[in-house]
């Protein structure tokens, strides 16, 4: 199957799962909703497996979302009709996790390269597709650089906690954050400018 079709089916499954009724507004949860969530979750998990991932990796990828999902689902379930609160809470959590798994499995099996080919096949404007490609290419080195800068910053901080420093020297700590962000931004832009100069030197056209 072409990357465009893989992306399209994954997104469609995710949308169907996300929009299946979940018992809000005193309505019961229809049985097809549970089937849709089960199907979306199964397809997502299968795609993870096809991409070479284990069940533990899938769980790690999805479980971190639980605090956000529960924060939205539990108070909303308390507003549901009496007697249907636990069902509404369970349905909201299942709906969110199933839709997320379908989309995550699709992105995992495609990888960054397949994803950019997929969005091109789906007709995304070329300018946005180019930006997405450039962002994905820059992302790995950028994340590694940020983590290294954060480690260096934590090492320089010594025994002081982040809050302790902020409370004792608020402006100096804020200025430190500013230097951190500005240094990262400048390195990013300078690297992108150098790549653009190299591209033009090789005879490529205007952006």
């Amino acid at each position, binding site marked *: 199957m072409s990357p465009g079709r893989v992306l399209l089916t994954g997104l469609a499954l995710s949308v169907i799962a996300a929009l299946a009724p979940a018992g*809000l507004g005193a309505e019961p949860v229809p049985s097809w909703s549970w089937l849709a969530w089960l199907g979306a979750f199964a397809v997502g998990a299968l795609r993870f497996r096809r991409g070479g991932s284990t069940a533990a990796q899938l769980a790690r990828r999805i479980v971190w979302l639980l605090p956000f999902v529960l924060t939205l689902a539990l108070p*909303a379930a308390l507003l549901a009709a009496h007697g249907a609160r636990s069902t509404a809470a369970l349905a909201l959590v299942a709906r*969110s996790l199933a839709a*997320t798994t379908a989309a995550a499995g699709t992105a995992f099996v495609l990888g960054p390269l397949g994803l950019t080919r997929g969005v091109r096949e789906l007709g995304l404007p070329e300018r946005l597709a180019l930006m997405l490609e*450039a962002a994905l290419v820059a992302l790995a080195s950028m994340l590694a650089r940020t983590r290294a800068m954060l480690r260096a910053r934590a090492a320089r901080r010594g025994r002081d906690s982040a809050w302790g420093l902020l409370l004792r020297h608020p402006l100096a700590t804020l200025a430190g954050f500013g*230097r951190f962000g500005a240094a990262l931004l*400048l390195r*990013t832009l300078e690297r992108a400018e150098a790549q653009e100069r190299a591209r033009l030197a090789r005879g490529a056209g205007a952006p």
Partner: protein
Amino acid sequence: MHVPDGFLSAGVAASSWAAGASCLAWALRAERSEPEGTPAGTLGALAAFTFAAQLVNVPLLPGTSGHLVGGTLAAAIVGPWRGLLVMAVVLAVQALLFQDGGITAYGANLLAMGAAGALGGYAVSALVARLRPGVRGLVAGPVIGAFAATLTGAGFIALALAASGLYPLAAVLPLLLSLHVPIALLEAALTGAILATLARWRPDLLHGLQGSRSGHAPAWGLLVLALALAAFAAPFASGLPDGLETAASRLGFAAAARPLWPALAAESPGWLAIGRAGSALAGLVGTLVAATLAWALTRRLGPARAPEPHR
């Protein structure tokens, strides 16, 4: 602030997707018509920077942390339309690769973080930059703009959740606005700190706001500020019937009225309410702190000088 999949109704998801796509189409057209093009690689790298900067989480309240969103920052550097495109790419990467924000909620997230920051925050920045010319205005503007944009985005998310039937608006709007005051202050502080450093090291990079002192952006800024003010002042609105309600009651057709969205008209449950003075007080204190931040961050700004080493 990222809304995951499964919490927006079909109508809200579809309408926010349509509005977000219209904003993107507008941004692409506006960007194409600008005389100086920015390479897609540079904008993509800026998107990767914004994504990486969002990794720096700062603890705010017990159990809550915040991070830079970056819409107003991106707009201050590359202009509002390119800023919106950068945010669209950041949110797409987050939704597709990191499951941070849902596919169906992408439109709502784009409006709440991308459009509110890159367009709303930029408009407020342009208004402040017009009132305070020079490099100080170029930094103080985005500080106030980022603060207003975060609260505008939170207000939009509250509207979307209420319209989806998840919560009553009367409860979720003041709650989300109050919770977002510290997050908005963090956004304002980080935006200002990064721009103040850039203003010292490479002031030539702050060209996003350079052309904004003419045109309609400051007027839009006034509108964004008025909306933010209205959201905080809403709990103090009079409970007495307005002119139409009085006329409807006298003429006897008041009972025929039905709410357009029942969820929006629902009463606020007591356990979810924070009190009507609470959100207004949070907004007032937050605005004062944001103004102080803007003053403190721009106090020492002068002519550009050689870069300092990163410490």
